[in-house]
């Protein structure tokens, strides 16, 4: 196995393009190293993108934030402004693993590992985050919900990798939140995850909503029916019931060691409700 740590995006693209199927991008490495150790992956080349300045910084841009794909969770949560503006995005990222994992794990890695249960992904989808993808044909913008195509699979082409994410400007009277269900209090993979971002009108009625669910389908997904259940409501019981029903209806999970289809489907509704309530109270400035 060869290791390269290019200093520029172009160098990285060159290495990845030449490396073909035998090349893997490494950001934080918290998933990659486990896969290497177990023998699940045996790449010929590992391209560490952490030496590329652009992947390592958070900058304010167009009223929003641009987050480098290799920014570690701890770094994002220590940012002076971002966690206040996008608390759901920050808390979703913060839930990945332990403090030790937070020191290394990145949004780019969490997304491109393409686990349906990745915690930061529903948070980003709800926030409307856009990934900036660099590749041999130049750069392109891709909504986060369009990156993963199935467990372990992404829509990125050969030589492509994610350089950064753009979190848009936060409208007034809006709030986001992420909750997940795990059996323990920490250190588990989400059995169900829900990211909700709401914008209210001046009377406190939901004007816009984005609801994303994780761990209940082959990829984390934006659930339009959940959003529709909330828009035009003040999150009354009827709306929450509708949200819950829409969340459960959207589920297409599997039975595995982490949860049953039945359980995930039911709890998706519960968690979606709980998350929406937090997002709503944040949007109201509570």
């Amino acid at each position, binding site marked *: 196995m060869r290791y390269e740590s290019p200093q520029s995006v172009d160098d990285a693209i060159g290495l990845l393009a030449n490396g073909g199927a035998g090349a893997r991008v490494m950001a934080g490495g918290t998933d990659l190293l486990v896969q290497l150790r*177990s*023998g699940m992956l045996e790449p010929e080349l590992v391209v560490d993108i952490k030496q590329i300045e652009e992947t390592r910084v958070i900058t304010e841009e167009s009223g929003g934030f641009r987050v480098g794909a290799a920014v570690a969770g701890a770094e994002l949560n220590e940012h002076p402004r971002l966690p206040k503006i996008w608390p759901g995005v920050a808390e979703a990222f913060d839930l990945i693993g332990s403090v030790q994992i937070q020191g290394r794990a990145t949004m780019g890695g969490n997304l491109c590992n393409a686990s349906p249960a990745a915690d930061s992904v529903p948070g980003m989808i709800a926030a409307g985050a856009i990934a900036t993808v660099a590749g041999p044909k130049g750069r392109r913008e891709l909504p986060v919900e369009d990156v993963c195509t199935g467990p372990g699979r992404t829509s990125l082409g050969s030589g492509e990798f994610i350089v950064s994410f753009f979190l848009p400007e936060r409208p007034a009277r809006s709030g986001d939140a992420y909750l997940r*269900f795990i*059996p*323990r*209090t*920490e*250190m*588990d*993979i989400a*059995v169900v995850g829900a990211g909700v971002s709401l914008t209210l009108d001046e009377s406190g009625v939901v004007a816009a909503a984005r609801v994303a669910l994780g761990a209940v389908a082959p990829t984390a997904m934006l659930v339009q029916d959940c959003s529709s259940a909330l828009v035009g409501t003040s999150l009354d019981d009827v709306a*929450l019931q509708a949200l*819950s029903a829409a969340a459960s209806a959207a589920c297409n999970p599997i039975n*595995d*060691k*982490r*949860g*049953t289809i*039945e*359980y995930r489907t*039911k*709890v998706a509704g*519960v*968690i979606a*409700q*709980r998350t929406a309530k937090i997002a709503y109270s944040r949007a109201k400035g509570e």
Partner: protein
Amino acid sequence: MTTNDENKTLKWVGSRPNRPDGVDKVTGRAKFGADLTLPNMLHGRVLRSPHAHAHIVSIDTSKAEALPGVHAVITGADLPLLASEFVPAGEAMVNYGDMCRNVIAREKVLYDGHAVAAVAAKSVQIAKQALKLIEVEYDVLPHVIDVDEAIAPDAPVLHDHMFTAGVEPKPEKPSNIAKRVEFKLGDIEVGFAAADIIIERDFNTETVHQGYIEPHACVANFSEDGQAELWCCTQGHFVVRGYCARLLGMEVSKLRVTASEIGGGFGGKTVVYLEPLALALSRKANRPVKMVMSREEVFRATGPTSGAKVWVKMGAKKDGTITAAQCELKFQAGAFQGSPMQPGAMCAFAPYDLENVKAVGYDVVTNRPKVAAYRAPGGPISEFGVESVVDEIALLIGMDPIELRLLNGAQEGTQAAYGPRFGPIGMKETLFALQNSEHMQQPLGPNQGRGIASGFWFNIGGDTCANINVSDDGTVALALGTPDIGGSRASMSMMVAEELGIDVKDVRPMIADTASLGYTFLTGGSRATYSSGMASVQAARSIIEQMRERAAKTWDIPLEAVEWEDGHARPASSNAGEFEPLSFADIARTMAKTGGPLVGSAALNAQGAGPSFAAHMVDVEVDPGTGRVEILRYTAVQDAGRAVHPSYVEGQVQGGVVQGIGWALNEEYVYGDDGTLQNAGFLDYRVPVCSDVPMIDAKIVEVPNPRHPYGVRGVGESPIIPPMAAIANAVSAATNIRFTELPMSPPKVLKALDEAALPEAAE
């Protein structure tokens, strides 16, 4: 051995000094199993079966052997095939036919992860590559994971030679039931006839692993003259020596085993896995070989404890008197017989004074790793069922669950359901302590419940040696044979300091290797502080006798005229003469002149270990939306006989409780349809993490064991017995649903809530 006067003020026993190995362990200096490197050392790795059950048709190791850097490859053919019979090994009975097949498969692989071959190479990387070059042809057989499926008439049979023992007449066909045992007292039919209420329940527990953080590791160094050295993390290096010598076909005394520091065991490091393979590789390669398991290997290939089906039936009068108690236990043993169903059956009803008892146990083999001991083996499983039913009796007759236990509780003179009469025991004292706890007054909120359970464990003694070498500066070296897992060196040092009348800092305890001390049975069965403590005290008393003799000679007075008090030899009375007392250090300083080195040795078979009881109380809250159970508050009372070092007694209790919380709520082996283990890692085998649990209030009561010089009872095991039932009782109280299956994981709890159609709390 005489018991210390209970009223005597003790200087060390009962205090909380710093442990002697503390600094080494907080600085990273302590050497654990994987921390030794020898010159010229190779690295060994094991090839493991991907199948749950298969015949091994052939193994071709030639390509692996040809890989540069590979120095030895072994298969089952490199180790002797031993007869399938039970023979004494130390104090345990061992079937070497099974053990030799468990350490490396012969005719068949019997579980996912079963060792098939092993390689020694100059690096781990090369060893791993070599494993991929070993070609094994398997003939895959149907497998069986579940205990009920294993005893079904058409189940695939694991061992063609296994006929159920303990049933008359001998069965005509082999089966997966290795053995049936039965314990009876009185007549249960009479007992049930006298009952006003009868409760009967089926329980299920899943396989759980000890989950020690240190994976198995060893370094073997076999020399050309047939002698060998082995360094390993084990609970009993003398036991390892005996097993390995037999498995390798070598003489016991040619193998010297040194116990490294051990990173947790809880029963799981009482057997051998890598050790015989490392020795065989070293013998073949003529070089030292180090082997370390990965975490995945620990889960797939080392012994967890049994999952079991438990049926309990108990009858009681309206006044709470239990009139009959019956249980049937079906324990899965893993691939080879030897589940702890027998102690499980024996201790099931031990906390109670009962006239009519019947406990039946079945030992059932399945295509899983062979179980090993795990804290109070068998007890947590059977007592989970019994303590749940006792709780239900209390509910049904409207009696406080502690009062019900006190009414029926065992005390001195009670004939235990497994036969003998109890001496002084603390069963009721543990319950009184719960009644008097502040916790009892804590109000409960919505979706919250409180549960109580008692627990019992036998405790053991056994072969033990200790040696004390006195230095001329008045300090002593204490050599022990029981590996120190949880701070036992501190306790031994304290007892020795107490006896000798010296500062505990002047006692340097160490775990001696197998060539340097007499045979000592392993650390397990809650025996270390009991037995090694007894031996250490005896060795210390031997030193005192010798010191009195030296003083008598020095003063030229008779031995009887010299007494030992507070670390000094003194004339027994003024009649004996006027002499300045000689301190321990004084006598040590002149020992060369007064007769030579002062050495105190003890070799004994410690007997009379007193049982220990526990009573636990827990408050839980159940999330009605997700089924998640949170532990809010936990109080655990333990009869320690006497707590030599109370901090480490509390530590045993707190650790046992949290393991029990894991067992109760989330820990389980999950198998796929193909018979392979699905959760062989700490990510999905969910031991409790720090944020999962509250402080565990450990309360010690002391009902001294008259047989031990300081009244010690083992405390390592009983703390893990009550948690599962206490938590189940608490969850049942919170939900009005009786939970009978472990773990009470969120999906199970939510399903039960849904089925009971409880109105969901407002979201």
